[in-house]
């Protein structure tokens, strides 16, 4: 857990205590109104700052599986330039990455390795299923292919296509950024680092 995360936790627990004390005073008031004052102004703002930082510095793991990996490389390249969205620093080691783009079909033999790589990534982490194969098995509905990578790891964003173009993948990354920001400061974001 990073310094920012621990700072957030400290402040949030302080606010929690404060809220408990003040809650009695505001007992007559509508709880929701009172809660929203504390949630929106104190807790959420700091969480949002952290979320904003996280969303603009997604470090994907270099994890090319099949055809989609080629389009993933195209996305990182000069024409589409994922650097505009802060997601171009591909890391060879999963221990330095916080985004896993599952780019291609996942075979039964690869699935345990994929899970291991996911487990090696530090929290908080996100997963994108790129392409039809990793989303649902695609055209390969047979004995060899895992019918959707969400059977192995939790997926945040699915990008359809076979393979999806770089623009589709960029759109997926923007959607993921929106998700990170909207979850920032809520229980969901805290669960991720817990």
């Amino acid at each position, binding site marked *: 857990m990073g310094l920012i995360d621990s700072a957030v936790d400290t402040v949030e627990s302080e606010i929690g205590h404060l809220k408990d004390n003040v809650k009695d005073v505001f007992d007559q008031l509508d709880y929701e109104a009172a809660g929203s004052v504390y949630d929106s102004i104190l807790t959420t703002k700091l969480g949002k700052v952290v979320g904003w930082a996280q969303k603009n510095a997604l470090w994907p793991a*270099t*994890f*090319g*599986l*099949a*055809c989609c*990996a*080629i*389009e993933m*490389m*195209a996305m990182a*390249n*000069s*024409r589409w330039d994922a650097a505009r969205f802060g997601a171009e620093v*591909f890391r*060879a080691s*999963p221990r330095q990455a916080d985004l896993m783009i599952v780019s*291609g*079909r996942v*075979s*039964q*033999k*690869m699935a345990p*390795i994929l899970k291991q*790589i996911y487990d090696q990534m530090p929290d908080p982490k996100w997963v994108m299923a790129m392409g039809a194969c990793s989303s649902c098995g695609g*055209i*390969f509905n*047979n*004995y*060899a*292919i895992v019918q959707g990578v969400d059977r192995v790891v939790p997926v945040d964003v699915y990008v359809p296509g*076979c*393979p999806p*173009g770089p623009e589709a993948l960029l759109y997926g990354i923007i959607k993921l950024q929106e998700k990170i920001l909207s979850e920032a400061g809520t229980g969901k974001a805290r669960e991720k680092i817990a």
Partner: protein
Amino acid sequence: MTVTEQGLLERDKDTMTLNMGPQHPSTHGVFRVVLEMDGEVVLSAVPEIGYLHTGIEKSSENKRYVHVIPMTDRLDYLNPPGNNLAFCLTTEKLLQVEIPGRAQYIRVIMCELTRIASHLLWLGTHALDIGAMTVFLYAWREREMILDLNEMISGVRMMTSFIRIGGVAKDATPEWIQGTRKFIDYFPEKIDEYESLLTKNPIWMDRTQEVGVFSKEQALDWSFSGPCLRASGVDFDFRKKRPYSGYENFRFEVPVGKNGDIYDRYRCRIQEMRESREIIKQALDALPDDGYKIPDNKISLPPRNTLKTSMEALIHHFKLVSEGIKVPAGETYVPTEGPRGEVGFYIVSDGSNVPYRVKLRAPSFMASPGMCHMMTGHFIADVVGIIGSVDIVMGEVDR
């Protein structure tokens, strides 16, 4: 480590086993190799494959011939039209049909464009593995143009599925022809640009010359094909030796190397891009005008506008869509020259509308044991260069 009289490396006791892959940025996919190391030197390299096994050959047995074509795209995903072509040529040989010249030329143009795109990707990633970042960005700039041409003609950037049994899916539009012309006029100076970055670069030469050497005999023994075989000094190219799809009509050179090291493979592929450009130029200049598919409606769909006026056209359309093409019983194989070497499908037909057996001869698969043999005696840092130079694609190794 000691060297025996035969020049073989003899293993000492204190060696280290090192695992590389399947998740390694330089293995070009999910290739895994287990290296036996003595310090920095590789004593033995054992490949392990199957991490991308997709069951395409087995799935093909349940699909009609036309439905197999999109699956062939995803075998060697850097050479989709080449795989389509290999499959369609084999099926057409079983059907014993003659393809119109225009369709053949469009096929050739698409395959050669893809060969350039594949070599560009190889050049970019190979240079990146060895440490040259700029080439990667430059090579992709031109690759995007080819992908745009693909999108223009077929609607898809990579998996075109454009080559069909009996011709191609659609006729080449004037815009596409014009765009291709523009590209081939623009491209040669860009090849010079890549060469100016690498060919005389002392770091590049140090890392590639006399590394991963395979002699003529070794290359043949380990059943190499394509640029890796030619870099070792064997003048063999299916486009010249056993022409298919109208390749006999084009004038082009087959680049052959001398030393069979990484540097020669690099030179061969660079030269091949120039020759591919020549082929495209000739094909565009001499593009015939005799239809983009065969008129036989039992194999290719009748024109859409005839469906409402001709009953036979409607019946043919219905039968083709609902039942597919019936291929006479028999078995055959047609070799073609892909960017990585000999690509071919061995198809067994039992006379029904689905193939009885489809077997792919994949150049990357055939080259991977030789590639691992090549690593022995080299430093660990050269392993990445050797993998890059052989240019394997795991999609067709594991299929």
